[in-house]
């Protein structure tokens, strides 16, 4: 099958392989990868009928790529699978009205729709007559286990899922837990803001990492004792999967599909459930058996996320077209 991924990945990253990003779809399908906006602006010097040479085009939809997806479907003969490349709230609340209308049009023009959480299925099914399926993102587990992350001595450090998406709640929870944290930062200023907040909040010691390459990030994560991400978005959840891959538990809400599947006993009631997160962190720290049980369960589910299983889900969806 000749496959092409069209996404909003920066042109410099289009060829990246074996990382926990959407680029992995092009890698596992051994296909090509184009940036949708660059294509639209003519940077590739092709017209849209160029896509007729592919059997399947996956359009990773964001507000920028909605029109691109429509044009691929209308101006080429390729089969098009729309892949929701963001939290469901992004599409239902955080894009402009005119784009929402085009989004519905695309969902009904495409041949199928791939989502990243089973909770999305009834929502999207109510918006389109096309087949809808949970596909997610392939995960390079073999590379993580065999190349990037050997077994190491874990440090008593909690890796926080983000400084941006509800990173604030992560910080509040960390303060209540009282263990040192580790955060990936986007700029030096982040460190300064945390220092300012520490004047008022009992934020424990924080290790700041700057790891724009995923390989560096996952290598760092491997040394943490557990992950924590109190995020409100209904989405795939790359963080919980990263944690499972490096054999550390993750505390998060079940609105991350990966969390729901890998760590059902570590799902908090909702993203504001600081008390629940503190309690679970305490149990993981105190009870080795609990830590081992949740990790054994996550390990038993990891097959679902590897390259092969993800490819099968996509092909199953394709076969429904």
């Amino acid at each position, binding site marked *: 099958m000749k496959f092409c991924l069209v996404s909003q990945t920066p042109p410099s990253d289009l060829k990246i392989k074996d990382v926990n990003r959407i680029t992995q779809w092009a890698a596992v399908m051994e296909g090509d990868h184009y940036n949708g906006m660059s294509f639209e602006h003519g940077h590739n010097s092709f017209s849209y009928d160029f896509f007729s040479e592919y059997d399947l085009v996956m359009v990773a939809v964001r507000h920028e790529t909605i029109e691109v997806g429509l044009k691929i479907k209308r101006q080429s003969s390729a089969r098009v699978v729309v892949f929701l490349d963001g939290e*469901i*709230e992004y*599409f*239902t*609340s*955080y*894009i*402009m*009205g*005119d784009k*929402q*209308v085009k*989004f*519905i*049009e695309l*969902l*009904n023009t495409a041949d199928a729709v791939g989502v990243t959480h089973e*909770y*999305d299925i*009834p*929502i999207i099914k*109510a*918006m*389109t*007559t096309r087949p809808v399926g949970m596909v997610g993102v392939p995960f390079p587990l073999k590379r993580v286990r065999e190349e990037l992350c050997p077994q190491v001595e874990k440090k008593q450090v909690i890796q926080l899922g983000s*400084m*941006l*998406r*509800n*990173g*604030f*709640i992560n910080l*509040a*929870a960390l*303060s*209540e837990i009282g263990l040192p944290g580790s955060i990936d930062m986007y700029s030096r*200023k*982040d460190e300064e*803001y945390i220092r*300012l*907040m520490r*004047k*008022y*909040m009992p934020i424990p010691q924080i290790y700041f990492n700057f790891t724009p390459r995923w390989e560096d990030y996952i290598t760092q994560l491997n040394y943490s004792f557990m992950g924590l991400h109190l995020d*409100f978005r*209904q989405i795939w959840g790359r963080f919980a999967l990263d944690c499972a891959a490096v054999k550390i538990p993750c505390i998060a809400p079940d609105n991350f599909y990966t969390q729901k599947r890998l760590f059902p006993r570590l799902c908090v009631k*909702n993203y*504001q*459930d*600081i*008390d629940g997160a503190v309690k679970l962190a305490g149990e993981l720290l105190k009870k080795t058996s609990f830590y081992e049980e949740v990790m054994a369960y996550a390990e038993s589910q990891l097959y679902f996320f590897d390259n092969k299983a993800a490819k099968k889900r996509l092909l199953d969806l394709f076969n429904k077209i």
Partner: protein
Amino acid sequence: MKFCLLSAEPYHPDHGKIYTIQQNNTNIWAAIMGGTVYNGPLFDRGDYGLDYDYFDEFDLVMLALRQETIEVGIKVKQRSKTKVIVFLDAEVDYFTTYTPLSLKAKMVELLNMADAVAVLHDESVPFFKALTTRPVGLVGLPFPLKRVRQMCPPVQKQEEIELGSSISSFLIHNRNALINLAALSEIGMPGVVNIWEPIEMEYVRSIREYLPIQQIKFRYNNLGWDHYITQANYSLLGLHLDNRYSWGRFPIDCAAVRMPCVAPPSLYTQKILFPRLCVPHRDIEGAVALVKKLVSDADFYEEVISYAESQIELFSYEQCKMRLFNLIS
């Protein structure tokens, strides 16, 4: 008690005067406290010709917290002797995710300088308690029930569903509008929506090509809240599958005009008024089932309305004032 509300609402000629308009918005705090309203950023810019020590003449300043008012709140506290209560004027995600980290640091400073912090949902209390040593409590918005009941007598309800939001040309008003419309199409009943611009009618017409939405009526928001509530009174029920953790002005509007509302418990008013009609925001199937039960089972309809009626006093002026006084004392 001399009371002032500082908000980010647009300029109004009545700013600085005793505020008397009783509608379901943040300004009602000034109306029930016999106080006044100023726009915080305009005050800071000097548009009212007043310095910050002007606030010394108030016993209590309520700062309606948005990104634009964080610095204003800090200045009120630093440059006057008044008591300041920070009132979270948006959903939790607005502060945790959609506010830049630089402003978050300032917000934490403000939350620790203020005399108290009022949140909109009981489930937000632990989070804000982790950010500040000051008292944190749920206060909410007073609701002008007496006035609504005078404006909205019992009427023959029409078989149509009032939607909490529709596709808007303003991003901030979209609030899961697509999910509301998707649910409406599954329910198969006519709907009514408030719109801001004529283009929003076009949006709905365009998606009807793909979603089997029955008849939908449009009502202009610029006719004001009084017009909206008197018209909403004719709807059979409300529906708002909103993902935000917030107060939820819509469910209480519904309860006030004696109609049930199907919505998630992340809207605090929904959780209190309509516990049997709570669904997760993503649960279209659950929402459809509840609406069908409300339409087909008159006893169920009456029971949920009767329960809401028994709880609505919690949102009265007296109860809200009591919660406010308890918090600042």
